[in-house]
């Protein structure tokens, strides 16, 4: 019964989305206030219905209601509770429901907190958001209904893919969707502004927090996914340039560009039409991502569901929204006139350069991702685009971006003097180069990658410090500290996020350049050397887990005779899913990870063992977390909450009170 209520709520949410689309859009164009006012309750109701529907599905998973087809296929009564819950979004239908829930959440947030938006703009934003909801709810209900029942419920389920039974992946999709779908707000704002024909500073102030929030969640989501791939897949890689990974990376790059260009709209009222275009494209890449992940057109190790019919529907949604928005853009963009002028050397110019580099980098990733599809259609050749392509074509743009970042970040608006900017940064530059030289001498004769990474990382982190020091101004230490403490949170956020970028760059280059790998057959009791460590395969035994059987090795790691760690790599077998998994054992450290994998048993009684030393691996994700933290700091800036409405009234005639 309760399941049917959830199903019914889903259909009601669909109807609410239809109302949220039609009424406010008609009302805004005709000037009917009653129609426009319907947007708020419709958005709220849609969110509540979907929340109820999602809770019901979760209830179905928690109570193992195997009359639900979805629960049967993705759950099992013996599964730990947390994975019963995460199983809700560990499959196509449930994750689509989560997607719709997040869409509705964002619309509802705009309805609740958008009180100081102009009436027509708010109505239009909610209307467009409603249209996106409507199309995705239609997709969910008509092609992939999560509430489909089974005529004859089985006694137990088929279990969730064991690879997904993992804390890292339990939280990866919700964060990713908060990011992906959050970009729909920027899209709705952009289309609404195009319909209105007006983009001003207040608009920029509205779009920025939404983009910032989406970007922040996307950063965390991608980091979690990469971290999961690192420790769970047992290959020790952190990024595979797989189509599904790229699908989340392209919106991230565009969102990062949008984040920066909306600052220019907000502060200087320039780059308006470019910002609108980015807002459209950012969500466009989210839609393309959904298409790539769910249609199965590209071979991916992560493929979700392979259903061409769903692919066609998603492609139609993408075509509809992108085609519509870009047509509108072509017709209206010329009406958006820039106000602010800026000199060639100015923060505006630096942000333009940032935007171009990020957009071109996204373009490179896009070409690399869809090239196999294009080549098959155009030349009839099956091919894949591998990591060497992305390393060669993508990296130069990131290097350029990192090189100009501290210069741009310390430049003033409107007009800057290059000499003064560089003067402040000389110390940072000298230190960074010294750092690179140090790394180069220490590693003698290995890849040039690590020294370059070290220079860029130090340059970014020190540049962020210089930026903060400049903001602290002159005077004695206490007045500087007081000024620093009173700096707007957005300035802190900027410095922190930029430093995080540097940390990630260092982690990636150090890991890539200095990783040590060893594959061998070891007998129980045998000790072998990997780098400076001595690893002993002490014991191999079998155990019974909650819903799996495991073969666990005990491996002792020592350095110079002193024990460092005892690790337990496993090979698990999940009998319900009939699936083995490899669980790498990792000793996390600040300067290195020890990463051990146990492989096949050998005929002569030994075991295949794969050992890695991964220097500075954790810095990659630590940097991502620092970046996201910077985003959160910036988001908490009170100016986002206060000034959005205030700016508009300050420009209007001054009220008499």
């Amino acid at each position, binding site marked *: 019964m309760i399941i049917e209520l959830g199903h019914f709520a889903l259909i009601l949410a669909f109807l609410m989305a239809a109302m949220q689309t039609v009424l406010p859009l008609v009302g805004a164009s005709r000037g009917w206030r009653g129609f426009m006012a319907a947007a708020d309750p419709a958005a709220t109701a849609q969110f509540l219905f979907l929340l109820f529907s999602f809770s019901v599905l979760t209830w179905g998973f928690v109570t193992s209601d195997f009359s639900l087809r979805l629960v049967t296929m993705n759950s099992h009564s013996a599964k730990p509770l947390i994975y019963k819950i995460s199983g809700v979004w560990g499959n196509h239908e449930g994750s689509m429901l989560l997607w719709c829930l997040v869409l509705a959440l964002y619309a509802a947030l705009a309805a609740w907190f958008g009180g100081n938006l102009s009436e027509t703009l708010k109505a239009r934003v909610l209307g467009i958001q409603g249209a996106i909801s409507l199309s995705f709810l239609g997709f969910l209900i008509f092609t992939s209904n999560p509430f489909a029942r089974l005529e004859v419920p089985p006694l137990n389920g088929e279990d969730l893919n064991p690879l997904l039974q993992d804390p890292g992946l339990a939280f990866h999709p919700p964060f990713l969707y908060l990011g992906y779908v959050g970009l729909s707000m920027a899209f709705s704002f952009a289309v609404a502004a195009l319909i209105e024909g007006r983009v001003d500073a207040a608009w920029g102030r509205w779009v920025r927090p939404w983009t910032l929030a989406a970007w922040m969640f996307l950063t965390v989501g991608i980091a979690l996914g990469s971290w999961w791939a690192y420790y769970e897949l047992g290959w020790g890689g952190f990024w595979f340039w797989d189509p599904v990974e790229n699908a989340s990376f392209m919106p991230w790059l565009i969102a990062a560009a949008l984040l920066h260009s909306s600052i220019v709209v907000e502060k200087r009222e320039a780059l308006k039409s470019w910002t609108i275009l980015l807002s459209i494209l950012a969500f466009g890449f989210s839609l393309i991502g959904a298409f790539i992940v769910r249609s199965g057109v590209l071979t991916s190790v992560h493929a979700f569901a392979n259903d061409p019919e769903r692919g066609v529907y998603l492609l139609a949604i993408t075509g509809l929204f992108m085609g519509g928005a870009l047509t509108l853009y072509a017709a209206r963009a010329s009406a958006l006139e820039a106000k602010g002028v800026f000199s060639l050397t100015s923060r505006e110019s630096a942000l333009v350069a940032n935007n*171009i580099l990020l957009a071109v980098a996204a373009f490179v990733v896009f070409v690399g991702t869809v*090239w196999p599809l294009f080549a098959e259609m155009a030349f009839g050749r099956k091919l894949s685009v591998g990591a060497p392509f992305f390393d060669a*074509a993508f990296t130069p743009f990131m290097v350029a971006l990192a090189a100009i970042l501290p210069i741009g970040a310390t430049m003033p608006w409107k007009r800057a003097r290059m000499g003064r900017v560089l003067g402040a940064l000389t110390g940072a530059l000298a230190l960074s180069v010294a750092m690179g030289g140090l790394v180069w001498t220490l590693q003698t004769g290995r890849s040039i990658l690590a020294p370059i990474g070290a220079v860029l990382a130090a340059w970014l982190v020190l540049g962020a410090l210089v930026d903060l020091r400049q903001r602290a101004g002159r005077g004695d230490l206490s007045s500087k500290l007081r000024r620093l403490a009173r700096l707007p949170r957005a300035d802190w956020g900027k410095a922190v996020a930029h430093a995080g970028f540097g940390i990630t760059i260092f982690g990636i280059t150090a890991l890539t350049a200095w990783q040590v790998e060893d*594959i061998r057959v070891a007998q129980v009791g045998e000790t072998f050397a990997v780098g400076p460590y001595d690893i002993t395969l002490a014991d191999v035994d079998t155990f019974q887990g909650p819903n799996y059987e495991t073969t666990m090795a005990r491996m002792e790691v020592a350095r110079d005779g002193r024990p460092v760690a005892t690790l337990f790599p496993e090979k698990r077998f999940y009998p319900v899913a009939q699936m083995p998994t490899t669980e790498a054992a990792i000793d996390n450290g600040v300067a290195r990870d020890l990463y051990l994998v146990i492989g096949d048993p050998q005929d002569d009684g030994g075991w*295949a063992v794969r050992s890695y030393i991964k220097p500075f691996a954790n810095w990659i994700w630590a940097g991502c977390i620092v970046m996201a933290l910077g985003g959160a700091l910036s988001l908490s800036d009170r100016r986002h909450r206060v000034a959005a409405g205030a700016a508009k009234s300050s420009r209007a005639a001054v009220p008499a009170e």
Partner: protein
Amino acid sequence: MRGLKKKRRIQVIALAVVALVASTALIGYAMRDGINFFRSPSQIAEGPPAPTEVFRIGGLVEAGTLVRGRGETITFNVTDGAASVPVAYTGVLPDLFGEGEGMVGTGSYVDGTFRATEILAKHDESYMPKEVIDSLKEQGTYQPPDGAMSMN
């Protein structure tokens, strides 16, 4: 003011064009090394590629040929029903690798053996790489996964 804005816009567009050209050139350059063609075992039997070329092979792991558990290197034959190519791989195999299962490997074809540097198998049991399905269909040996339940 107006002239300056126009000039700035032209400069921005020029910069964007330069970046786009640079990226296109880089893409073209990177494609020379970064692209791996896909070959089925029968294509390799017809005309073996040069030993320097890195490409992808895909098919089913032929039953009875998988030798694992004898040293670091694992050997097996990959087949599409018509031809079969021996593969050697050093490393730990992906979890869902087994005889009769689909696989895709990256590597090069040296002296009649495909030396794989990377082996991909599927992530869940109902998934098979698209290239493998296509090449099996070409040879008429493709069987869709059984039952509607596994069509996740």
